[in-house]
């Protein structure tokens, strides 16, 4: 039982890591970033390239988010900033167009072939936990997910920067009147979201396929987490990921044919009955 829970939690943290950047950008900017999957893919490829050049997984894990954060800032500055006052559809179209551009860029740079980011040294192998074998890397994934969740929560809820971020998103005119440059705040948020997408790509690369198109395959899972947790709700995203991870873990033992049915029925019911998300404390609270 404990082994199953641990595996379920590791599944949950992988889901959370994949969705964290998406929910952050929506929560803070109100932009549904369809290009999240493409940034995730780019993160995995950059991590692969950094690893290839340095043979260091740590370097890959650090540099990929930094480089993609820079790219995210450029994207926000040139492509999204002119669109904040326009209809959501235009933002969706812009981020969708970005997917096509980033996919093509990856194809041109790295080709269509598969890539592999090997497990870092010391993270291969598994440990027995109450009758189940849990991969050491899974424990690392779990710890990374917890650290990212806690870090985001701390940043948004407990720091002055977080306070400015929240204020700039909910009352931009007031914050601007206080002399804070809201545009810069938005750039920082998008860059942070892009960095989280890249971090997800880098940490997921040793357990998921690295190839062109890999971003498309995760975007549905991301939206399930984000919708169940409440759009833009970090705390909700963590809770939703844990719910889904444990549902998969126990569902696989007791009702494997029904996991998808239960997941998507829950999703529809949440959208109909509780659109603010299953785990929101209140409709207005976002962090």
């Amino acid at each position, binding site marked *: 039982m404990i082994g199953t829970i641990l595996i379920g939690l590791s*599944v949950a943290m*992988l889901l959370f890591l994949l969705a964290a950047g998406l929910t952050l950008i929506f929560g803070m900017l109100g932009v549904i970033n369809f290009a999240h999957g493409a940034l995730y893919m780019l993160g995995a490829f950059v991590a692969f390239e950094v690893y290839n050049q340095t043979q260091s997984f740590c370097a890959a894990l650090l540099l990929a988010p930094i480089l993609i954060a820079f790219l995210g800032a450029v994207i926000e500055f040139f492509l999204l900033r002119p669109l904040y006052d326009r209809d959501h559809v235009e933002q969706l179209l812009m981020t969708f167009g970005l997917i096509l551009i980033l996919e093509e860029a990856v194809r041109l740079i790295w080709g269509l072939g598969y890539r592999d980011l090997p497990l870092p040294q010391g993270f*291969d192998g598994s440990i027995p936990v109450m009758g189940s074998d849990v991969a050491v890397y899974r424990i690392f994934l779990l710890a990374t997910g917890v650290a990212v969740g806690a870090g985001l929560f701390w940043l948004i809820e407990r720091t002055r920067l977080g306070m400015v971020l929240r204020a700039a998103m909910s009352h931009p005119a007031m914050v601007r009147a206080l002399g804070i440059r809201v545009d810069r705040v938005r750039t920082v948020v998008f860059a942070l979201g892009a960095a989280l997408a890249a971090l997800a790509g880098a940490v997921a690369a040793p357990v998921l396929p*690295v*190839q062109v198109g890999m971003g498309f395959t995760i975007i549905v899972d991301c939206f399930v987490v984000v919708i169940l947790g409440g759009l833009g709700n970090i705390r909700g995203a963590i809770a939703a990921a844990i719910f889904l991870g444990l549902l998969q873990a126990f569902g*696989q033992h007791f009702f494997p044919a029904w996991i998808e049915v239960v997941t998507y029925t829950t999703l529809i019911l949440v959208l109909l009955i509780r659109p603010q998300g299953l785990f929101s404390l209140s409709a207005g609270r976002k962090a």
Partner: protein
Amino acid sequence: MKNGHGSLLAACVAGLMAVSGSAYAAENTEFKVGGVVALSGAYGVIGEAMQKGAELAVEMRGGKVLGVPVVFQWEDSETKPQAAVQKATRLMAGGVNMLFGAVSSGSTLAVMKITERQKIPLLVTLSASDSITGEAMTRYTFRTSNPVNMENQMMAKFASRDGLKKIYGVVADYGVGREMWDNLKAKLKDQNVEIIAEDYPPLGNKDYSIIIDKVLKSDADGVAMIMTGGDAITFLKQSGQVGLKDQKAVFGTMVMDELMGKAVGNMSYGVNSTLRYHYSIDNPNNNAFVKAFQEKYGELPNQFAGEAYDGMAWFLDVVDSTGSWDSEDWVNAFENSTYDKSIEGTKVMRKCDHQAAQIGVFGKAVKGEAPMPEVTMEVTHRFDADLLFPACQ
């Protein structure tokens, strides 16, 4: 007078024939091949390999068939039946002489219907659904690569020869996946292999850790994988991290080769898989192909390139042998064709279902020494065609 009229008429007819003949010849200044393969997305790597193989087949025959240059027109099927049909329709409207593709069985089955209406030959070198040469068979479609039933015969024989008694099935949950598994289960039972459990993860599943845990806790001595591409890579990466392949035999249809090895890395070693083709097959035709492929592309040919090359070379040989521009002649000739220049030995086109009977190859991933790829397939089993194809009925 009568003779004079007759001579005049004959001269007119001859003149008309000459004019129409020259116009006809002018139309056939090139032989157009329309390729509908995935050139983007997750299966783009497969389409790209097929493109390389097919183009090399033309290059190695001097770039010509029926005395005119062969010209390729490639379209991206996007791995969607609807897109494949649209692109194939466009190519046929542009006057292609034959079609080549597609990648997924769903796309191929959809394209088959329209090629039948237009009476354009369709050469299949990848899609494996038994329907293509079974209940959906058409006069104009030919498959020179492995069908599902053949792959499953190899899987069952591998399990039997390697002494596996209890199998756990992990099957991607989609129509063809379930069909393949039902077919394989029957064959495994024929070999007295017991199926102790089965799981059907959804297509595109991100996490197999729970299923892998169940397999590890079971008393199965082997796990049969019915999944492709990204799903197979995810399963092999995640199962390798808890040492599944070290405790149980892991095998599947096309789940491992040098291409997949690049994605799975050192978790590949020990994984067993059917192979459509392998560059290590030792015969003069294959050796020449591998050498030419390496010279042109700087890499070893993978299964998809090998099968595409073989099918295209065979079909163009048949077209040339007819000396005709009539597709009916090509179809009639291909139906009765035996190809002894195949890079896999000899292939025989079965008139009853338009499926090429051929040898089967099964391999295991091992660590390759330079200049071989880091993950190299070692051919462990080779099956004769008569063991793999039921007699025509």
